[in-house]
């Protein structure tokens, strides 16, 4: 109640706009003057965006190659079916590019029906370990179970189901010209997010030790052929937890069908200065990743990009459809308004 004021009107409530609910206010109404222009405007915006996006998308090129059983890979596919999974298998798939890919060309691998989005799978990782915490290196989080320790009780680094199931096929792309095949140079670095590479994933501090020494006392994940400190034999700085392929893999896909970046065309030399020229290509695959257990498929995707990302037909079409629907609604509203509401006859009491 506060202070008690003296006088005959002591209990009179304050005459403030707030207490008397008379705050100045804007009370908008959905009137024809505001709604109809808004609808036409939205339809126009969506239409313009849609057309723009569509034109942009038309200029991109994309090629998908399902190599699960393509070419010589059906042999490898069979091989992965049986127990001798550790045996290496190399196969080749060929494809043809009819129209040259101009500009930057991106090489993706794709997986169909691989569920990176299962709750237990997604949780099965230790971010603290991968950011280089020493404690977690030797004693991984229990979330990693059962991939936290190997049969001998040695801690696994990196632990967990996500790291364990890393996609381990590797690709060599060749351009087949009349004078033989030219290896297409792919940049395999800088394919992950800056924040991931520099903040989310760090190696344990080395303190004058080599990387293998740091990782001493840990075991590689069960399905890995190489230890984590030896993932990229060519570049020492691309090893350990900050290996680009590992980082890309560790960013779990939201849906069971996904494609992840493998490399970017290095446009330093001819004939790839302007992208990928038309012609025949072959891709040599070190075929390691088994997909038949879960009825999955594997593919490689080559694509050029636009200002809003890769080839994406959904957005322009969705915008165009939305614009048409809004326009339709706007016209219907206008008709109804003209017929029934225009003169405000409904508004009369």
């Amino acid at each position, binding site marked *: 109640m506060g202070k008690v004021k003296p006088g005959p009107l002591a209990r009179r409530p304050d005459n403030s706009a707030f207490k008397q609910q008379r705050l100045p206010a804007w009370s908008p109404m959905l009137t024809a003057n505001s709604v109809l222009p808004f609808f036409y405007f*939205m339809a126009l915006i969506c239409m313009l965006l849609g057309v723009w996006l569509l034109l942009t998308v038309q200029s991109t090129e994309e090629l998908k190659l399902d190599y699960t059983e393509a070419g010589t890979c059906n042999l490898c596919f069979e091989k992965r079916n049986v127990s001798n999974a550790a045996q290496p298998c190399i196969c080749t798939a060929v494809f043809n590019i009819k129209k040259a890919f101009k500009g930057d060309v991106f090489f993706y691998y794709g997986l169909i029906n691989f569920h990176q989005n*299962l709750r237990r799978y997604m949780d099965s990782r230790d971010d603290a370990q991968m950011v280089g915490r020493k404690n977690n290196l030797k004693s991984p989080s229990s979330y990693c179970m059962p991939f936290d320790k190997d049969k001998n009780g040695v801690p696994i680094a990196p632990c967990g189901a996500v790291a364990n199931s890393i996609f381990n096929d590797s690709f060599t792309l060749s351009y087949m010209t009349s004078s033989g095949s030219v290896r297409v140079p792919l940049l395999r670095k800088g394919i992950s997010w800056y924040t991931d590479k520099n903040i989310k994933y760090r190696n344990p501090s080395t303190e004058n030790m080599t990387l293998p020494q740091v990782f001493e006392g840990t075991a590689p994940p069960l399905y890995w052929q190489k230890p984590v400190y030896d993932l990229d034999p060519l570049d020492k700085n691309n090893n350990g937890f900050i290996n680009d392929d590992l980082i*890309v893999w560790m960013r779990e*896909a939201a849906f069971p069908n996904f494609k992840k970046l493998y490399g970017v065309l290095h446009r330093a030399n001819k004939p790839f200065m302007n992208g990928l020229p038309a012609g025949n290509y072959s891709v040599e695959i070190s075929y390691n990743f088994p997909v038949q257990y879960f009825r999955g498929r594997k593919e490689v995707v080559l694509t050029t990009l636009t200002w809003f990302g890769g080839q994406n037909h959904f957005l322009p079409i969705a915008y165009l459809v939305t614009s048409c629907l809004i326009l339709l609604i706007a016209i219907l509203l206008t008709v109804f308004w003209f017929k029934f509401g225009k003169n405000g006859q409904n508004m009369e009491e």
Partner: protein
Amino acid sequence: MDFDGEVICEPPNNKLDKFTGTLHLRDSKHPLDNENLLLRGCVLRNTEWCFGMVIFAGLQTKLMQNCGRTTFKRTSIDKLMNTLVLWIFAFLICMGVVLAIGNTLWETWTGRNFQVFLPWDDFQSSAVFSGFLTFWSYIIILNTVMPISLYVSVEVLRLGHSYFINWDQRMYHSQTNTAAEARTTTLNEELGQVEYVFSDKTGTLTQNIMVFKKCSINGQTYGDVYDEFKQKGEITEKTDCVDFSFNPLYDRGFKFYDGRLVEAIKLEDPVEQDFFRLLALCHTVMPEEKSEGHLVYQAQSPDEGALVTAARNFGFVFRTRTPETITLCELGRAVTYQLLAILDFNNVRKRMSVIVRNPQGQITLYSKGADTIIFDLLDPSNEDLMYTTSEHLNGFAGEGLRTLALAYKDLDEDYFEIWMKKLISASTVIENREDQLAVLYEEIEQGLKLLGATAIEDKLQDGVPETIASLVLADIKIWVLTGDKLETAMNIGYSCHMLRDDMNEVFVISGHTLLEVQQQLRSAKEQILGLSRVSSAGDVEKAEMFADGSVYEETIIAEYALVINGHSLAHAMEPQLEHVLLDLACLCKTVICCRVTPMQKAQVVELVKRHKRAVTLAIGDGANDVSMIKTAHIGVGISGQEGMQAVLASDYSFAQFRYLRRLLLVHGRWSYFRMCNFLWYFFYKNFAFTLVHFWYGFFCGFSAQTVYDQWFITLFNIVYTSLPVLAMGLFDQDVSDQNSLHYPSLYKPGQQNLFFNKRQFFLCTLQGVSTSSLLFFIPYAAFSVMVKEDGSYISDQHVFAVTIATSLVIVVTVQIGLDTHYWTVVNHFFVWGSLIVYFSILFAMQSDGMFGIFTSSFPFVGTARNCLSEKSVWLVILLTSVVCVVPGMAVSFLRVELFPTLTDKVRHVQQFRKRQGPQEQSLRRVRRTSSHRSAYAFSHQQGYGELITSGKNMKMSTPSSTGSPGRTPQSSTWIENMLKRKNTVSCVSDESTGAPAKTD
């Protein structure tokens, strides 16, 4: 004094008119009955002291026993909310079951094969067990559809609404320095749904002040004011009062505006003089002259006080009385009349007379009473005057004034002697005394000469007719439940326009037996239904076929009113008749129950509550209203003169009946409107928020993976979206308060539960579900093919989570923007603030620093930075927001254009009139032109004449005696009405004379 006794009495009960007990005092037994009992709240008068003993105290008093139980009150929205929460829970279980089955199937077909990469947990033996676990996981994840914060928010809103009621200046009464008070904070929105108002009369509708307003003397009316053009003018504050200063004993509180009457008195017109002489002589008022010239009248009924005061001001001052004499001061001369007999008032006779002998020896009988009765007793020679007076009386009745006709008769000395002897012998008879006396009275009160008529205004509280008219327009049915007499109650009914002369019929139910009452109720109902059937269909069927009269309620065009007295009500409330009563009452526009006990008031309320699914409101000011205030859904107490009991039992209290209009039409309507919009939005928001998980389940192997970040789930309801909707729930106004009052029909949707009901709930969940599916599937379709501008991978779960969360926050914020009708600064602040807070928290939680400190708690590091810098993500967010918002907008636009509700129309008008000032509507007090009913009403009791002639209540005559314990409730209330006949003094404080009700 040594007083050592023992009382043995009945256990505490609620019967006000019965008491039995025995007092054992020094070997002697004294029976105790009702006459020896003082009820709680009584005030002793005319005695300096008395002995007493407290028999019942506190909760055991008869008054408290009448109060009824205090029940826990909840609003219908509350009950609906509880039902809906149960439904939502069932829905949650269903979703859990669907997803659990999905999980079982998925694990059987796909997950089994995925074990290479993700083996089952040790304890997980089969796909079915996995489904079972998934069920519980999903119950936990989807529990956000069950709005826990809903209950808290609803309480906050109600508290806010209560404060707005407390703060409302227009419900503050400056004369009494009382502000309106919401004493319960949980019932506000129910105020917007009231269908039945049960009102007390005295102190609630009326001020319990009687004012001598007009009179008709010898065929001439006085009391109207004429302006210079001889036109009848309105009496306003500015009209000049008649100056009574010629009379040293005049009462300053008395106001009269017609100067002609004083002129007539000054001219010593004998008829005028006789008129006021009668008023000064024929009554049972007790004078009290504490100092010379300072007269205070203690009248048993305020009407009488007003009449005697009028006589006093016009120069016929009633000064003292003894059992045998009355002394007047007639125009300055002291005249003592010998009081020969008082022919007492009772409800059958409807008149009282006195027989006095003036100093000249002339014996005169003065009589006042109901016009219908007095006119029958008149001398035939008076016929012309009778017709004129009767016309005047009709005029008075038309204005809702209470009338009394006055007549006199000069008596022959011999005739009187004989009559007096008969009277004395009759009064000593034991058997049939009453009847014999009545016959004798009848005998002498013949051949009277008409003097004129008085018209007294039972002063209504300010704005009562307007309030009632306004509430009736809002389809609120008002029942008056009063302890007063039939005539008084009806009179008030007329003066506040609840009863009108143009009504087809006013049914008066006053049977004494069950059968009589049944007969009367049936015939009344048959009459209503029969008439309407004839007028509507024409076929004649038995009215019994329509026992369920409510069906026909709507079709009755004719207006009826029902007046029922407490005695009949007791019968009518019996189980076999209550349906007939209720049907009949609901067919009538107006229902007045008179002479009802406090318990009966509660029973009537209970009856309506039980059989009509309607919200009831009881309003009263006295202790006698406590039970009905407690029984009704909402109890309103008038914090007036009658003490605090009603206020203490009430849910809302204010000083004047007229504030009820603002409480219901403005605060109640707003509260209901806000609460409904709030609930609508709240359920929508939670469904849109939560069901995204459900859709995601179909793509993540039903593994109970959440779409959003844990932190977003935690903060969404309490930080990101709570404040805008709270601001809407607190401040929203669809139409302004002036328009709410101006168009009472705006109140009707609340009574019909239109703003939030099961259908509305279904619609809002439907919108929520469709929003959630759009929120999920549009990003899904976009993300399946999306990469970042630099080609790197972007369609991962974290980005997906941030995109959907951002779209969701934007969509629900836009939606609250569309739902808000009244954008105050606070709304702007909260709406924009919420968006800003969302983005700030988003970036803060996904910052490097947070990740560095709590690595495993914030795995989303950098996601917001990476994805919200992408044009494609914004394209997705824009598309999602547009698609989610546009349909709802189109629908609401079309609804307003094609099927505008009254609210929309008023809003429309309001938009155009914004610049113009508020237009106060004044409902003019409609005068009824022709009236052929008696407006007689006199709240008088029998038994006072006897008291005066016996001298029992004369302090002066027996100064040494202890006197009889007087029993005086603070006004003429129910307690008196309960008591058929009293021999003890009961002087009612007469407020018109300004006598304070004080205990010695």
